[in-house]
């Protein structure tokens, strides 16, 4: 395998790991809030989180450019202040993968949290636990398998992200060219050997992820 391919693989894994960590940080509290709390704008939040699941990834990527690009709503003040933009950096690949993977984690974890018997939480309340402690000691441990299954799926999705990454991060070899993007480049430039190697690696990784998620899902049920 060429150094470019190895580079792509290491980048992809870095992106996927970081995106999964961000998913855990944002997605688990979000899933809990959607499952257990009533708040203003809940429907809107649910919609926004889920949208990347059904929109073409390029559309999601487009919105990310509008938001974070050098001339974006958040991106332009940032650029004005620091002269730095996230666009076309590997952080952009992380952001794109995070946004694309989030609905998978949130939906899976939310279902797992919703399936926890509410009487268990009520019992914890009568036994002196705050809602916060109850979530940590009762709800989340009991939803653990579903949450892990969601994280595994999110990791797989982040690993395979293509469209939104291309839009926001571009396809810069050695910087933002993840495995899926490198496969595309390799096919475009006729390097089918390189493409085949990367395809095989992604396929095997995805199979492993699906098996793990399936087993966790079965144990959760």
């Amino acid at each position: 395998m060429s150094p470019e391919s190895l580079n792509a693989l290491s980048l992809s894994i870095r992106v996927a790991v970081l995106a999964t960590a961000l998913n855990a940080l944002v997605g688990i509290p979000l899933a809990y809030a959607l499952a257990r709390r009533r708040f203003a704008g809940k429907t809107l939040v649910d919609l926004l989180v889920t949208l990347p699941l059904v929109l073409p990834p390029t559309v999601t990527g487009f919105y990310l450019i509008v938001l974070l690009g050098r001339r974006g709503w958040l991106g332009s003040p940032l650029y004005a202040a620091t002269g730095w933009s996230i666009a076309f950096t590997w952080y952009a690949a992380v952001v794109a993968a995070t946004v694309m993977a989030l609905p998978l984690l949130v939906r899976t974890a939310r279902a797992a949290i919703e399936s926890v018997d509410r009487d268990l939480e009520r019992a914890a309340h009568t036994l002196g636990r705050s809602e916060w402690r109850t979530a940590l000691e009762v709800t989340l441990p009991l939803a653990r398998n579903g949450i892990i299954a969601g994280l595994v799926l999110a990791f797989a999705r982040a690993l395979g992200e293509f469209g939104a990454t291309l839009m926001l991060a571009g396809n810069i070899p050695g910087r933002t060219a993840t495995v899926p993007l490198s496969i595309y480049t390799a096919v475009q430039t006729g390097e089918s050997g390189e493409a085949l190697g990367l395809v095989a690696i992604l396929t095997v990784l995805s199979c492993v992820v699906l098996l793990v998620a399936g087993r966790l899902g079965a144990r959760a049920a």
Partner: protein
Amino acid sequence: MSARLDVALHKALPGFDLDVQWTAGDGIAVLFGPSGAGKSLTLACLAGLVRPDAGRVVVDDRVLFDSSAGVDLPPQRRRVGYVFQGYALFPHLSVADNVGFGLRDRPRAERARRVQEVIERLGLGGLAARRPAELSGGQRQRVALGRALAIDPALLLLDEPLSALDLPLRRALRDELRATLADLRMAAVVVTHDFTEAYRLGDRIVVYDGGRVVQSAPRSELLWQPASEAVARIMAIPNVLRGTVVKATPDRIQLRWRGQLLEAVNSPARAYLPPPEAPLAFFIRPEYVRLIRKDRGLTDPSHHMNVMQGTVVEEMDFGTTWTLRIRLDEPGAPSQGAFDLEVEVPHLVYEILEIDRDRHWDFSIHRGSIHVLPG
């Protein structure tokens, strides 16, 4: 005796309105009534898990909730032990960790001692390391009770504590639960829709129907003096009948039913004196209807009162007793569908009288066994 528990709750939900007020003294109060009457909602309000729109909850002079004073203690600070229907044991924790769950603030050694104490007291010794999934139904119930008791609650709430169990175990645990609760001498509220359970467990029974309290009374008073026909029907008392008043005095009520002139005992205490011709509900306990033996000569009116004649039209074998459904000879529509009265006789009596062969009987009802239900 001062009231240990003073409850007034109002809560409007879509399609349901809870509006109840009752008090209880020492011992166990049972909330009894059909499903959906608001019993479990009441428990949730007592525990602070549901916030009532208005009302007041006082336990031993400690105000847990008072809408007019703006008091609403969160469930965490109410010191209310709650045994949930289905027990709600934490499946990922051992028996010991379940029991000790409410003791987190105490020093480790004291906590361990208290857990041990509760486990011993409830006969769960040797099960401390088990998970709830590895326990029998009866053991789970005891763990749930132990978990609630471990925090030394000021008030103990039990929601259908026996409904998850098989019938034989249910009877045994009912008596065990009664003994345990009697030992504890703490205010306790039990919810059930089973009258036998209510009667066995409760010192006071509060009858719920459609979000209202229809009667609150010591258990024996409820058994013999249901406040109304509605209460009698909720208790599933057989032979709840409707007649017409002939004459009412403080001691006696004469009434007409299915062409018979019956005499019932009135209670001077409740001063119920309906005018003549007023409709009147009453009930006759099936086990208090006497069949008159044909080999004992003519009916002696001093021995037998309220004598009637009828035919057994249906019979049901309940193992130790037979229930006979009797249709009076009187022409006209029977008062309970195809029959007028249910009569219960022990197997032995059934055999001696050869009821399987002989279907037509004279029977009598003592006036003290006809219970008038005030309107």
